[in-house]
């Protein structure tokens, strides 16, 4: 991190407030220091506490100045129209996730032409539960005109018990805020459940709720490599967010060599979640799949895993390579809704893949061939 010039601290002190100068090392520039100080003050004004307001502002600024992410300091992060609670130990929702989740809801809600009997969504590595909650909100609000909207079943899975309890708390929190209708025991409008499982566990599929078919499988798995975690990951993220949610675990001892026979997945260590996800895809056969990725190279590697044409790597999951022929593959950039260069494509292993939106490579999207018309989002 470059050193901040003392003049910047003076400016913060003079033009904004001494508190802003205190925030500067964490925020790195005047504008965001001013913004964060304002948000902290607003938060203190909006919440009740026996502690005097000025002292609370000072305490929160102090905490933030130590590098704790603002979302942990304030305890929330806006996500779409929802407010997601954040606690240390669970990854904070990112704006890129918000962008593709909102974009994802559009084709799902437009899919009402064959009048599906229900809409089932499975979210793996759900964390705060932000993706299922926002999908639910979008589906409930964008499609009220249909006479009988299909009931929505959403299930979220995470390995961390903290994440599961936070996801449930977030569901209750957004019901209390009035963003979501109360959990319906009687009316079958939607059902949202979370459960704690390891997605690598062989018994995972037996523990899922009995879905007839899955319309969408979505996942934001850990995808940062060890090297990137040390080098390109922000300090606040490294020091305060759970490593479990960021970096895939190394292969079990004894299987250190990824090409050894015991190592199940023929891919780079940071991509093992995608290998496992594609295995799950080949078994559950969802209509659509969305997997968040860490950048353009990783997006291409994941496309390679899907098509079984990655450099020298064989098909996914030892023979489950039938994913390749059954799905259309797209790569989504940070803002999939913004129209970028029209008709951008990229070739991976002799197969042309549509690229949508602008920004960095952010997600790999699969649509099952034949069953639904190819993604209706305008291009």
């Amino acid at each position, binding site marked *: 991190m470059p050193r901040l010039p003392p003049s910047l601290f003076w400016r913060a002190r003079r033009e*904004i407030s001494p508190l802003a100068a205190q925030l500067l090392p964490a925020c790195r520039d005047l*504008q*965001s220091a001013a913004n964060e100080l304002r948000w902290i003050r607003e938060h203190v004004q909006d919440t009740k506490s026996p502690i005097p307001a000025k002292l609370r502002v000072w305490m929160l600024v102090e905490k933030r100045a130590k590098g704790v992410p603002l979302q942990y300091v304030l305890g929330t992060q806006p996500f779409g129209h929802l407010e997601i609670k954040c606690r240390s130990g669970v990854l904070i929702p990112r*704006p890129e996730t918000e962008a593709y989740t909102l974009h994802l809801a559009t084709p799902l809600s437009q899919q009402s032409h064959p009048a599906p009997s229900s809409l089932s969504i499975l979210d793996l590595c759900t964390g705060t539960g932000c993706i299922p909650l926002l999908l639910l909100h979008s589906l409930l609000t964008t499609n009220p005109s249909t006479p009988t909207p299909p009931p929505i079943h959403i299930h979220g899975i995470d390995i961390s018990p903290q994440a599961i309890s936070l996801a449930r708390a977030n569901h209750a929190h957004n019901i209390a805020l009035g963003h979501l209708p109360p959990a319906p025991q009687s009316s079958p409008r939607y059902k949202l459940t979370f459960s704690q499982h390891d997605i690598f566990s062989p018994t995972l599929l037996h523990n899922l709720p009995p879905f007839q078919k899955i319309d969408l499988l979505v996942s934001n798995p850990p*995808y940062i490599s060890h090297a990137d975690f040390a080098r390109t990951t922000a300090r606040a993220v490294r020091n305060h967010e759970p490593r479990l949610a960021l970096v895939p675990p190394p292969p079990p001892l004894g299987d250190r060599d990824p090409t050894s026979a015991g190592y199940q997945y023929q891919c780079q260590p940071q991509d093992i979640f995608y290998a496992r996800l594609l295995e799950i895809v080949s078994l559950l056969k969802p209509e659509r799949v969305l997997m968040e990725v860490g950048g353009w190279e990783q997006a291409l590697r994941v496309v390679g895993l899907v098509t079984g044409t990655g450099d020298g790597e064989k098909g996914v999951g030892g023979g489950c390579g039938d994913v390749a022929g059954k799905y259309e593959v797209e790569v989504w950039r940070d803002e999939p809704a913004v129209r970028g260069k029209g008709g951008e494509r990229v070739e991976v292993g002799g197969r042309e893949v549509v690229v949508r939106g602008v920004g*960095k490579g952010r997600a790999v999207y699969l649509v099952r061939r034949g069953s639904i018309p190819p993604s209706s989002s305008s291009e």
Partner: protein
Amino acid sequence: MLRPLSSLRALLRRAGIPESHHGPPISRPALRSRFTTSPAANLKQLPPRPKHPPESEIEESFLKGSGPGGQKINKTSSAVQLKHIPTGLVVKSQATRSRTQNRKIARDLLALKLDAIANGDQSRTAVVGDVKRKRAASKAKKSRRKYRKLVDAGAGAGSEGEGQQVEEGREQGGEEEEGEEWEVVEETEEGEVETEAERAQDPETERVQPIEVDNTKKDK
């Protein structure tokens, strides 16, 4: 809160008199005017909030630092910048932490700006600015009057012994001030008008440009 209208209706209902017996129904604003003493200007309808321009005319961008994004970094601000393609107008909002909220605020701002360009004096920002300016001016005038009275009373009480001279002086002073006051009012008003109108023009700009002097003031 006392609601004269509804309580009147409730009374009528209790008395068994159907409301329709009282001749043709009176429109709401007209009815309200019978119960309020505030000037009629307040009842004048402001122009409605302008509609957002169509999405096809907007080029939206999300300002973010360079870097990998995603899980690797954790941004707190999600600034939204809109460019109106036909006019080239650019607005930016980082008022809230919420991207969704910022997108809406930016669109509101853009709509207000376009409205101001298209309708000039009749635009919502101009009319709202007018109303605010008038209110501010009348408030300033009242406060000036009040403090002048206080000062005069103090002066009168402090120097009773000098009798008529002072009285005269006061009278004269009063007259002069009366004359002066108008000039002063014009001047100060002009000064205030500028800032007030600017502020009124887009209430969100303050939020959009958050490096503001306000914070400093609050602290000291």
